[in-house]
């Protein structure tokens, strides 16, 4: 690439921010999803020893933790599809994409922590009092929408 195509608005390091945005979207949301899966998996393993018939109900926190990683994947794929040469990719685009990636990444991290802790305590409690199940689902949904808020902000930023 010639020196003249790079301007102040399109510096050589412009795509760096976009790449970091895509990476952080995936890394942090996978971090949250992994914690959520592992923590609620511990609860399921402890609970299923006595009540194996409740396995299908108690898998729900694991599925919800997995969905948080899909949020990050969606944003990472969207950003990666827009990345290109510094001449066609302004620093502004890079900043926007970094912001989008961090928004969904850290929201996913927080949501994954919440899903994990609620899932662990929820499935253990459901084994002793089945009527807790509705409450556990509601709390899980409220934990899940924290990640969804991050996704909405990320897609809104990306559409700029």
């Amino acid at each position, binding site marked *: 690439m010639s020196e003249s195509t790079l301007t102040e608005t399109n510096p050589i390091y412009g795509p760096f921010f976009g790449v970091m945005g895509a990476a952080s979207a995936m890394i942090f949301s996978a971090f949250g999803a992994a914690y959520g899966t592992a923590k609620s998996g511990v609860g399921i393993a402890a609970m299923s020893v006595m009540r194996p*018939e409740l*396995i*299908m*109900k108690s*898998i*729900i926190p694991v*599925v*919800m933790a*997995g*969905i948080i990683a*899909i*949020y990050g994947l*969606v*944003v990472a*794929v*969207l950003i990666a*599809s*827009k990345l290109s040469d510094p001449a066609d990719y302004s620093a502004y685009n890079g900043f926007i994409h970094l912001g989008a990636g961090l928004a969904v990444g850290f929201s996913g991290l927080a949501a994954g922590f919440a899903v994990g802790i609620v899932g662990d305590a929820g499935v253990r409690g459901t084994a002793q009092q089945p009527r807790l199940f509705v409450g556990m*689902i509601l709390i899980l949904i409220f934990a899940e929408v924290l990640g*969804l808020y991050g*996704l909405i902000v990320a*897609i809104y930023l*990306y*559409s700029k």
Partner: protein
Amino acid sequence: MASQAATGIKKLQAEESEAVVFQTVLFYSLAILLVPVAAFIGSKVTLGGILGFETHSCNIWSAVIAVIVLHLMLGLYIYRTFYPAPTKQTKQD
């Protein structure tokens, strides 16, 4: 003899219900993983190729549709755990 047969039937039923639970969980897990991906690709082809959307807005709408389909699948799974499918009644003597 009768008690042995009863325990045998109970064991068989337990194994059968375990297989049914595994099939259900496997089906819904695959649905939650694969259907949104199919929705993303399908809506991208439909919006970009047939309806002629611009690539940028086509990507955004495909992502939104995929996330909505994902939550529909999750809702179906939660519905199924609340209201399990009626199991076949086996005759017991």
